[in-house]
């Protein structure tokens, strides 16, 4: 009950506060948003490599990142430097996860149209109805001048960020993923970050060959649309989440076409995977977690429904619970309310 009162009181308090200080907040917000736009641009266009601590709870891992942009094409390699030897290499066409500790390589190919989709958020006023975006202190991190930018969620359905952006380059030297109460869920703390004129291709090669590992990848052939034209819908979406992408795909390691719907509030996103369930197997149910991401599974009408996202547990649960099957089979984009946001 207490939670419910707080939750309903919060937007009102926030609105009142905003009204009271509206003139100065608006000016400050614009500048904070500009910082975030600069950050997006830096992240997408610069060549850099560095090492960072990935810290969650009392656990810390050291990781290396190598990010190359060549003729507008991004290749990124993330390597765990502690123990497992895991690494992830992603480029325009695919994401490859080398998991030597599981003797597995996971290949996730992007298909055709998905490369057209931009996932870079627009830091606009609309986003501010779900997050407050403000400048914090101007401070030092890694011995450099940084500007702190606070992106705080206005409700319990999304996480926020505290970012320490380099004054000169707007690169996030430190970032914290926080819940609505400001508790840090995880943080990335750069110990070293170098900008490079050029990054040799050899730096983007995995350290393990993957030979003798199980390679899990989807079939090259893409599923036929006609086979799954039943529309799915999510009712009672948490505020601000809208359908941004719909596609039919194979998930690595499976021959069953999976419908993949993406819902986003402009910053946080949740994927909903829907696939026919083998009637001989037990359905997957309940909540699971990988890093800061949650997943929630349920079975619905002979289908397995799983919502996954870098959002609080209740958001994936609410979205998975809201999945319903449309009565009329039709073009999925037309039957799902909430057109993708225009950019």
């Amino acid at each position, binding site marked *: 009950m*207490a939670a*419910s009162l707080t939750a*309903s009181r919060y937007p009102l308090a926030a609105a009142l506060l905003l009204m009271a200080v509206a003139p100065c907040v608006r000016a400050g917000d614009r500048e904070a948003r500009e910082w975030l736009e600069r950050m*997006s641009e830096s992240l997408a266009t610069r060549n850099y490599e560095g090492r960072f601590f*990935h*810290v969650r709870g*009392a*656990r*810390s891992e050291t990781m290396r990142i190598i990010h190359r942009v060549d003729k507008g094409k991004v290749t990124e390699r*993330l390597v*765990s430097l502690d123990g497992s030897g895991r690494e992830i290499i*992603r480029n325009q066409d695919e994401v490859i996860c080398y998991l030597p*500790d*599981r*003797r597995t390589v*996971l290949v*996730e190919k992007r298909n055709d149209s998905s490369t057209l989709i931009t*996932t*870079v958020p627009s830091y606009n006023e609309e986003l501010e109805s779900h997050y407050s975006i403000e400048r914090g202190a101007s401070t*030092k*991190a*890694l011995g450099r001048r940084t500007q702190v930018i606070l992106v705080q969620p206005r409700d*319990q359905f999304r996480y926020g*960020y505290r970012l320490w952006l380099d004054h000169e380059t707007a690169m996030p030297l430190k970032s914290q*993923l926080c819940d609505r109460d400001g508790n*840090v869920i*995880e*943080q990335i703390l750069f*110990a070293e970050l170098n900008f490079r004129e050029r990054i040799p291709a050899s730096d983007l090669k995995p350290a393990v060959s993957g030979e003798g590992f199980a390679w*899990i990848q989807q079939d090259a052939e893409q599923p036929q649309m006609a086979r799954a034209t039943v529309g799915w819908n999510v*009712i*009672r*979406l948490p505020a601000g989440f*809208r359908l941004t992408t719909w596609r039919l795909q194979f998930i*690595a*390691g*499976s021959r069953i076409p999976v419908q993949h719907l*993406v819902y986003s509030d402009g910053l*946080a*996103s*949740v*994927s909903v*995977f829907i696939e026919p369930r*083998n009637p001989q197997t037990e359905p*997957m*149910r*309940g*909540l*699971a*977690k*990988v*890093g800061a*991401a949650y*997943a929630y599974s349920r079975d619905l009408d002979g289908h397995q429904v*799983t919502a*996954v*996202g*870098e959002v609080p*547990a209740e958001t994936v*649960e609410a979205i998975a619970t809201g999945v319903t099957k449309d009565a009329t089979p039709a073009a999925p984009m037309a039957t799902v309310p909430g057109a993708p946001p225009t950019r």
Partner: protein
Amino acid sequence: MSDALNEQLSACLDGELPRAELALLLKRVERDAEVRDTMGRYALVGEALRNEKPAVASRGFSDGVMAAISAEPARAASRVPAAFLRRLRPVAGVAVAAGVAAIAILSIQRVGGPDTSGSAQLASDTTGVTSPGISQGVDPSYVVPGPNTAPAPAFAIPAARLTNYVVAHSEYSSPLGRRSVLTGVLADDDADPATVVTDESRDARTTDRSAPQPQER
């Protein structure tokens, strides 16, 4: 190295260091090789802890912590300060809870399968993955017991399947979200105490259900 500095380093890794102090500390980390070493060592101890499986945790997690620390090179072990160990306690608490939850999962799975090998088979069937490398190596430890209210047995999302989904999802995340999701995959292991929803957090979730329903759209 002073206790105060050790406190600062571990507070920094916990994300609890005030901003002003953090700036100073990072400056110092950058300048001072010894401080850098210490930070790395703390990360190593974290790594050692990370390798503890919940099953072990239920038999005596604090012993495991001590073993992990004494497994460090002697030089390092003698220098892991009390300040840092004090901070480990909450972790041990979570891990013990994780151990309890792991037992719960095993008993839940037995409902669906005649024996443990049966339930392992079941888990791999659900993935639809035929590769032996995956189906045998997977410890279904992402599993979180379903909500208490669910009458039917809760079945976990198999680890391999979950990783597939998470990676497929990452391509649709914002750049910050993607980094968070992918580092999660890198850092993840099969027995992550933090993956288990503790009673406390589950209670919190239950409470939240009484919160206003998300908007109907």
